[in-house]
């Protein structure tokens, strides 16, 4: 969706010949105008002393969007914005993200959400989003793993729609086992691979002599015992 500015009768964004009264070129003005809107939207939610949108701001944004704070679409938005720190959007991230979405207002943002969902679900993006979801949870510096509780929530959020039965069993297992207190990135990525490759619930084609992470070997063993 092109920014509204380009629909003006004045010169299109890439011509720079006409100068307006305040010395800026019209195209710049058009861009700035669009950018302005995005910035203004940013400032609505940003914490003025920090210069970024903080968790409170995000909560507010969510409520304005009519979306729950824990909704997966916010995670998708963070992904689109390439947000680095969980619970915060910087101005750069905001600008780049909203431009990529082609929105500059709240209503447009709200309308863009379903499309964003479809974009994420595209096979080429899905794995990227999945990995992003994990990294987004690494809040401490040098943190490499995420605790089981959060992982369970994340699994539900991210894989729940597509792989409901796998997620339910896996979450149940993660809660009862005590071998692992945290999950690392390698295990995380293999959860997705497991859902995609292994037939469920029979687990017929699972081969523990391959390089599956040990936690999945144990999970499969647990499932097979349950089934017998």
């Amino acid at each position: 969706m092109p920014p509204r500015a380009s629909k003006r009768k004045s010169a299109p964004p890439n011509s720079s010949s006409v100068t307006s009264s305040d010395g800026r070129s019209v195209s710049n003005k058009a861009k700035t105008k669009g950018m302005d809107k995005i910035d203004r939207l940013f400032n609505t939610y940003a914490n003025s002393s920090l210069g970024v949108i903080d968790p409170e701001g995000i909560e507010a944004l969510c409520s304005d969007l009519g979306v729950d704070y824990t909704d997966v679409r916010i995670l998708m938005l963070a992904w689109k914005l390439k947000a680095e720190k969980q619970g915060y959007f910087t101005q750069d991230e905001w600008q780049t993200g909203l431009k990529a979405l082609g929105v500059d207002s709240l209503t447009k943002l709200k309308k863009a959400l379903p499309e964003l969902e479809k974009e994420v679900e595209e096979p080429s993006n899905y794995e990227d989003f999945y990995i992003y979801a994990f990294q987004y949870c690494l809040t401490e510096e040098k943190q490499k793993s995420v605790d089981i509780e959060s992982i369970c929530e994340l699994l539900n959020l991210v894989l729940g729609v597509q792989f409901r039965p796998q997620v339910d069993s896996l979450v149940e297992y993660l809660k009862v086992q005590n071998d692992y207190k945290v999950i690392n990135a390698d295990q995380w990525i293999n959860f997705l691979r497991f859902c995609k490759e292994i037939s469920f619930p029979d687990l017929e084609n699972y081969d523990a002599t391959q390089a599956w992470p040990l936690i999945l070997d144990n999970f499969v063993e647990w499932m097979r015992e349950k089934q017998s």
Partner: protein
Amino acid sequence: MESKTIDFERGWDHVYKGIKQLRRILEGLPEPLFTSGEYVMLYSTVYNMCARNPPHNYSQQLYDKYREVLEEYITSTLSPSLRGKRDEFLLRELVKIWVNHKVMVRWLSRFFNYLDRYFVDYRSLPALNEVGMTCFTDLVYREVQTNIKDAAIVLIGKEREGDRIDCSLLKNVLDIFVAVGMGSMERYEDDFEADMLRDTGAYYSRKASSWIEEDSCPEYMLKCEECLKKERDRVFHYLRSSSEVKLIEKVQHELLVTYIDRLLEKEHSGCRALLRDDKADDLSRMYRLYCKIPRGLDPVADIFKQHVTAEGTALVQAIGAASNAPGVQEHVLLRKIIELHCKYMAYVTDCFQNHNLFCNALKDAFKVFCNNTGTDSSSAELLATFCDDILKKGGSEKLSDEAIEETLENAVKLLAYINDRDLFAEFYRKKLARRLLFDRSANDDHERSVLSKLKQQCGEQFTSKMEGMVTDITLSRENHAAFEDYLRSNSAAHPGIDLTVTILTTGFWPSYKPCNLNLPTEMIKCVEVFKGFYETKTKHKKLTWIYSLGTCNLSGMFDQKTIELVVSTHQAAVLMLFNTSDRLSYSEIMDQLNSTHEDLVRLLHSLSCAKYKILSKQPDTKTISRSDYFEFNSKFTNKLRRIKIPLPPVDEKKKIVEDVDKDRRYAIDAAIVRVMKTRKVLGYQQLVSECVEQLSQTFKPDIKAIKKQIEDLITREFLERDEENPNTFKYLA
């Protein structure tokens, strides 16, 4: 010598006369042999007819005449004598005419020799000998070859059935087959050998099919051995040596290969039964028969392995089921396993000639049951206990030095079959420490001998710590002499008590819990004095005192008599409290000693509830509780003047297993890094197998443990999974 041209007719006339004379000689008529003069004449005649320029060069005609003469001789004299003859008579006659033919050719060739020198080469024609051979082949051999082949094979068949035959006749006949080949073995092979082999095969196939029904395995094998020997003799006596390999292979195939399964699996006499009944001779024979056959020994080795595995497993189960006192049972188990090992090792060396297949079969079999003791203790622990029993004083063995050496040697051999070698090392080390520190070792030489055997078997690293321990004891003794000198020259420093200190180098000895026991003042003084001495020797080392390993001799002033009590330092610390107090409660003792509850209960139990009640306890129950009170038992007495109050050791088994598990995690980690550093990129399964290989000297790693370490290394960013192929790992430098 004047040589003039000669007229063909005249020359030939002369030569032909000589030929006629030759024929008469051959017929056996009373004809004088050629004189050398006559021979020279004939030779020269031929020479004169050939060494000329044309048209007086009659080489070609003479060459043709030579052939003619031979052909005529054969057809008129030789061949007819063969007709109508059969079997052995045919063979005899053939040999006779062959001999005649050879003589004829020899003499003729001498006469016509000049042709061989130049004409034959010049025209690239076959030499005279060859011509002779060809004539025989075409005119005689081709006609009779099938019949003589058949007759020869019949003779061989008769010999196989036990008849005596004329070997030299057969040999001569076979020489003809070879000669006819003119340098190649083709005729012998195609015209005789092929059918002979076929006939042999059929013969033995028949025999085998009836023998296998009637005979037991040993009987059958004996027959095979005999047959093979006879066939070899056959080759020696008349067959060509080139036939040996094919012949033996044929016989082996019919007798041994075709029926291998039936033979080995014969119910009452087959391989299993032979093993069961210890029939060493028969098994040796079986080995000899099958070792030359490719893959022939595989099923034998397999049965051997199964048998040994079954015996071993039955042994382990039987002893597991028997309800002996623990300790005794396990000792018996190891003895029996050693016996079993010696028994079957003897089979491998004597019957099976130390063949690789059988060495490995034995190894694999032992590995199966040696790791499964069916008791609470792992086989590694049992073996260490077994060695400890032999090496300690008053051990259950009252054997000669040689017998002890032999038993220890056999015990060390068993280590090769145990997966958890590192666990054995830990247990052995712990027990060695106790033997060394409490002076329980029976014989220094045996101790050192075991260590050197272990070093040989498992490598230097395995025994380096243990050797360090033994060295420490020796050094401590020297050190003690120096300490005594020190005390003599510093009499003020003398603590008033005889003190011996053993210094242990930390890395070599098992780790001991340091304790914070409060010692009686007398002992504290000892410690200080020694520290003083030690500082004069070295300032760089730190001493950590392990009182739990010490012993103390106390004089117990009982009412009836004074008895010397040999106790541990901790026990002594408890007893000495009663020098200043008559009666102490558990908690008072606890406070004064600063011990742990676990240790204190053990100590008090050994002094008040065990065999010798040095302390009396109120209430007088069999166990220690925290509300008990203790008094010095002045009424105690014993007929001995010196008694040892044992303190049962803490069961360190769990800790040892934990320590070893930890070490294994490090070892696996290091192995994975080593492999990946070299390979850079490697598939999961290969990585696992290379790790297992690297660690195989020390222990058999659990695959899950390897997987866990791989994951750990991924988290620590040493490795990463390949994006394209999730079963491959990459080394991150």
